[in-house]
């Protein structure tokens, strides 16, 4: 073997190990979800008897379907708001000169490092008094707060790549700074905004701490929290199949993002890291 081919095969082995390690736990939960209830404890990695009964089971209960609606709705609304507010702030950071910018960036950084659990007890009590406990806004608000730092960093990194001159040209042509923002910069910024939206959506979709603390019923419980309340057909049966099936369902959007937006997600995570 020449050195080149040897190097190539070494890289190939390294790559394969990484890919296998990354994928196996996901395959395992998928395999569990397709196992027949009678074979679920057979410990084989692949199902011996394939079935869809676990999926049928979870889609038959409002516990899961309602939680899925909550998850999708809450994550989408929080993502939308976060990208809108984040874009405004990021535009100001990247393009405008104004006093207090350093303070804003410092605040954003502090929030990014903030331990979510520290908010759980005060928010639990406040939300009960304000009637926000176990409602969609009750989750959307903390998601918005904690996704804004991520959004602002990623977006301002993208916004700084946009050529200044176009905005100036628009303003010379008579556009106000606001028009320059909506008509010229926003379309150029769209790729960065899509990337940010994906990252923020993943963040909201993933949350468990708030979802389990600030909800108590189907009214607003998201899937990660609802899974924890699944119960088996009898007390002696753990609902492994249902949990696995629900887990697979909420993993599907993530897999779609990863396959179609892989470059963007990497670009988003790395750009924010170096410059922001």
């Amino acid at each position, binding site marked *: 073997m020449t050195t080149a081919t040897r190097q190539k095969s070494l890289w190939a082995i390294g790559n394969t190990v990484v890919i296998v390690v990354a994928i196996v736990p996901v395959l395992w939960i998928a395999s569990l979800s397709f196992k027949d209830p009678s074979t679920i404890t057979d410990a084989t990695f692949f199902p011996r008897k394939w079935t869809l009964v676990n999926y049928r089971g979870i889609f038959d209960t409002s516990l899961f379907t309602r939680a899925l609606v909550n998850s999708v709705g809450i994550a989408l609304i929080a993502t939308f708001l976060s990208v809108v507010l984040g874009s405004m702030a990021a535009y100001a950071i990247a393009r405008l000169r104004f006093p207090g910018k350093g303070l804003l960036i410092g605040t954003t950084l502090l929030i990014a490092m903030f331990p979510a659990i520290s908010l759980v007890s005060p928010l639990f009590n406040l939300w009960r008094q304000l009637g926000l406990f176990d409602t969609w806004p009750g989750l959307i608000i903390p998601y918005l707060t904690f996704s804004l730092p991520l959004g602002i960093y990623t977006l301002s990194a993208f916004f700084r790549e946009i050529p200044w001159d176009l905005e100036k040209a628009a303003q010379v042509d008579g556009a106000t*700074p606001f028009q320059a923002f909506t008509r010229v910069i926003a379309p150029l910024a769209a790729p960065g905004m899509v990337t940010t939206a994906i990252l923020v959506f993943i963040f909201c979709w993933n949350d468990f701490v708030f979802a389990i603390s600030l909800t108590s019923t189907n009214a607003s419980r998201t899937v990660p929290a609802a899974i*924890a309340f699944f119960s088996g057909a009898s007390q002696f049966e753990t609902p492994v199949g249902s949990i696995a099936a629900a887990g697979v369902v909420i*993993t599907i959007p993530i897999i779609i993002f990863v396959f179609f937006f892989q470059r963007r997600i990497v670009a988003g995570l790395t750009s924010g890291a170096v410059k922001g």
Partner: protein
Amino acid sequence: MSGTAAPRPGAAGVLEAPPEVRPQRRRARPPLSEGARAERRLGWLLCAPAVVVMVAVTAYPVGYAVYLSLQRYDLRFPGAKKFTGMANYATVLGNGLWWTAFGITLFIAVVSVAIEFALGMGLALIMRRALVGRGAVRTAILVPYGIVTVVAAYSWQYAWTPNTGYLANLLPSGSAPLTQQWPAVFVIILAEIWKTTPFMALLLLAGLSLVPEELLQAAKVDGATAWQRFTMITLPLMKPAILVALLFRTLDAFRIFDNIFILTAGANDTRSVSILGYDNLFTALNLGIGSTISVLIFIAVAIIAFIFIRGFGTAAPGQEVARQ
């Protein structure tokens, strides 16, 4: 800049000021042109909503948590609510449960971040240098990054459950790692590493791009080995990115909640401080003690951040932004 043209009606809040007064105002604050002022206002206006949301939902509740932590406030006996000063802090800090949880949390954070750093660096190098299959690796590692932590935690839990799991079967029969303290802690660390190494790797990959290729080539020509190039060129140049990655991951690991909640629910002394806080709030329904733990976690996180930023000279992310 714009704005120097015809003044827009209602623009500056100087509506009542007659034109002849304006030069006086100008003299009072000479360097600010109309355009600069419009820019300022727009800047504040654009940032205001984000700032309000971020501050209102964090600063106020933290203040409220401090207030609650000074009270005896048991939700089962709301009538017995009473200001008790630092009594809750004495209770928590004088209790072995807190220190056990604190020790476990620190152990998990330090061990998982250390291993993640080593693995993440390897992954970053693979993603930058691999001759084949870079795209496949990038796609694959985004799966653990993106997957819902709770789902991954269930996958690990069932994998290590005797009779059910493919991993538990590899162990000597009769062992159930999740039912013993240290084996369970290591399963938790494994789950944590699997989930967050990709994030570390991507941050380090961003840092790697700061290392100029010519410098590495020059060193190679001068006879530096791969290891020397890595330790004497790559690492020092990446130091800022490394410190930021370590800071963020350490703080994140210190907040660990999801994995432990699913894997052990804190049984057999595997509680992290976050789990302890949750248990006191929702199992014991003690808002006073729960808030005290919240405040203590907040202080611990602040201390860790302070050590990184002052002790290691981590550039706070955003400083670059401020300079531009």
